[in-house]
């Protein structure tokens, strides 16, 4: 097996602010192969966007301290000079963003924004670039592209704008496409169309895709592998099937239980993950998830778990201090409809019970 297209190794991104150092990304590693799709899932502030912006060098001018390696096609994007990196941006690695209206320049026609992307990296004639722009709009399923190419972004609907963004990203046939919350600002029906489009384009163009989202439901259909991020770290990484079939981390369980499903009874309530994402300046001790974890034990407040392989499940890694056998029992319980309140006794130590909500910010959670 050859080298993966993209290999992120122990990437750390820190920002110095007046309040202290923000550890936005805290040692993440993953890789993406050509033709594969990886999902990065986490709440806002988990570092998922920062890690991909860093890949493109877009955090450099914001005073970020960057460590680790981002090997892309034989080059390290962390140490690459600005000008070299600029030639990769929009060319070999392209990115699409959350809000397609604010991400397109309001004063330029869609066509000129597309040809600009082409002219930046290719020495082609005006008419050739324009033909290519029309072709791209057609490729992403925009009807009547010859006419639409001369319209302004505000004349497009939300879904069509996101298609324009995708067309722009594809302009130079990138090897890697990063989609940062590509469907968050869109209607549910349009979301499905955009995801189907990405999936279809990948099978036709063969690029690698990274989908960043807070919504596990979004990535379920189109990813091969999923990395779940929490407080700047990857807490679980596994093939998509394993994430949904045998998730190992309490945070992943929480994400899964908070997805609304059609096949559950209507009176069954969605279970939110209690508490808020931690501050990335003063992070919780031990396992960063412990203040919000229903299965916390005293030791978890002191020991920082590392991402380790799950025994008997190849390609699956998790950073959790609970023992694997216990995790499987809890997940089986959750999957069959039990709640964390009833399953908590499984982890309670014999001599003294552990209060799950020791931290004050989770006090509203108490179900009893």
């Amino acid at each position: 097996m050859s080298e993966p297209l993209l290999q992120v190794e122990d990437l750390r991104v820190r920002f110095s602010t007046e309040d202290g150092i923000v550890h936005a990304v805290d040692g993440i590693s993953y890789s993406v192969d050509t033709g594969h799709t990886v999902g990065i899932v986490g709440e806002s502030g988990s570092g998922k966007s920062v890690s991909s912006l860093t890949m493109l060098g877009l955090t450099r001018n914001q005073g970020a301290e960057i460590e680790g390696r981002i090997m892309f096609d034989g080059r390290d994007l962390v140490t690459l000079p600005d000008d070299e990196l600029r030639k990769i941006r929009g060319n070999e690695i392209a990115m699409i963003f959350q809000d397609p209206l604010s991400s397109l320049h309001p004063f330029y026609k869609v066509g000129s924004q597309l040809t600009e992307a082409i002219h930046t990296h290719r020495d082609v004639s005006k008419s050739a670039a324009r033909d290519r722009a029309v072709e791209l709009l057609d490729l992403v399923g925009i009807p009547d592209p010859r006419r639409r190419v001369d319209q302004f972004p505000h004349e497009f609907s939300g879904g069509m704008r996101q298609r324009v963004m995708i067309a722009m990203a594809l302009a130079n046939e990138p090897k890697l496409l990063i989609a940062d919350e590509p469907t968050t600002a869109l209607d549910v029906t349009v979301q499905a169309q955009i995801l189907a489009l990405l999936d279809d384009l990948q099978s036709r163009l063969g690029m690698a895709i990274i989908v960043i989202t807070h919504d596990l439901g979004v990535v379920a259909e189109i990813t091969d592998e999923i990395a779940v991020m929490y407080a700047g770290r990857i807490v679980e990484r596994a093939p998509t099937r394993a994430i949904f079939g045998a998730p190992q981390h309490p945070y992943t369980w929480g994400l899964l239980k908070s997805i609304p499903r059609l096949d559950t009874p209507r009176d069954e309530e969605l279970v939110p993950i209690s508490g808020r994402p931690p501050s990335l300046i003063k992070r919780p001790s031990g396992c960063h998830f412990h203040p919000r974890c229903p299965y916390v034990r005293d030791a978890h407040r002191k020991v920082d778990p590392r991402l380790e392989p799950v025994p008997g499940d190849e390609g699956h890694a998790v950073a959790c201090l609970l023992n694997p056998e216990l995790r499987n029992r809890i997940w089986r319980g959750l999957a069959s409809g039990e709640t964390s309140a009833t399953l908590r006794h499984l982890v309670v130590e014999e001599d003294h019970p552990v209060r799950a909500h020791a931290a004050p910010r989770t006090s509203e959670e108490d179900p009893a």
Partner: protein
Amino acid sequence: MFRYIVRRVLWGIAMLFIVSAVVFLIFYILPSADPAVLRAGRNAGPAQIAQIRHSLGLDLPIWHQYLNYMKQVFFHFNFGYSYQYNVPVRQLIFSRLPATIWLVTGAVIIWLGIGLSIGIISAVRRRSLIDRTSMTTSLALISAPVFWLGLVSLYLFADDIGRFPILPGQGSYAASSDFVSRFEAMILPWLVLAAATSAIYARYMRASMIDTMSEDYIRTARAKGLPERTVIMRHGVRSAITPIVTLIGLDVGTLLAGNAILTETVFNIPGVGRLLYNAISVSDLTTIQGITLFGAFFIVFFNLVVDIAYAYLDPRVRYS
């Protein structure tokens, strides 16, 4: 787009009518002197004054007077007759207009050139030494009144009374005959007139640019791999300048009506502002009225230009 322009033009005309009526009313209700008395000269008897009042139509009801005035303005472009100078007001204004246009045009070019570029540089190099220096300087310039700045600049640089006599000073414009000396004579007035406004524009532009550079589409432009220069100029400045354009129209108008008067007075430039100053000091009502209307016309005109320019600059406006 065409309908939009027509609508703006009609609005502009309506605006001029309102302004003319208000101006007329002000001078009717609050005259600084009785025009008939002024015209009659010294030692005129009451009968003589009454006769003059009648011949000038000043004994007619106000609406009738207004109608007469507007008829003259509209059909003959006639703003009345100045009895102080003994020439038609139109001729007075036109003879003074070139100097004022010359003054204002130069000042606008300087203020936009300096103001906008400093604003852009300050925004891009935020918190740098150049940013802090220019923002502090701009605050000082905004706080300095034009007449004071004019006198200080004469005291420092005028070739007759200056400490560093390097530039032509007061009255040099009126005395100059060729283009070069006219240009030189204007350097100080231009700088003085442009100073405060360029300082304000530097601050506007800086704020607008900082806002724009944090927009998502700037991130998109960077993600495309555009060189930073292009990102700043084509994507950043293009957006940041749009709200500034609206201000330019307003400020050119106020410049003509306000600071130009002060600058022309300090530097003794024979422009419309200086004319207005003189007219006020001798209560030459028709001239004051004519210049006020003329000023209003310019303000309305520049606003119209700005509205149209804005629609051209921001495609979203065209369709609403």
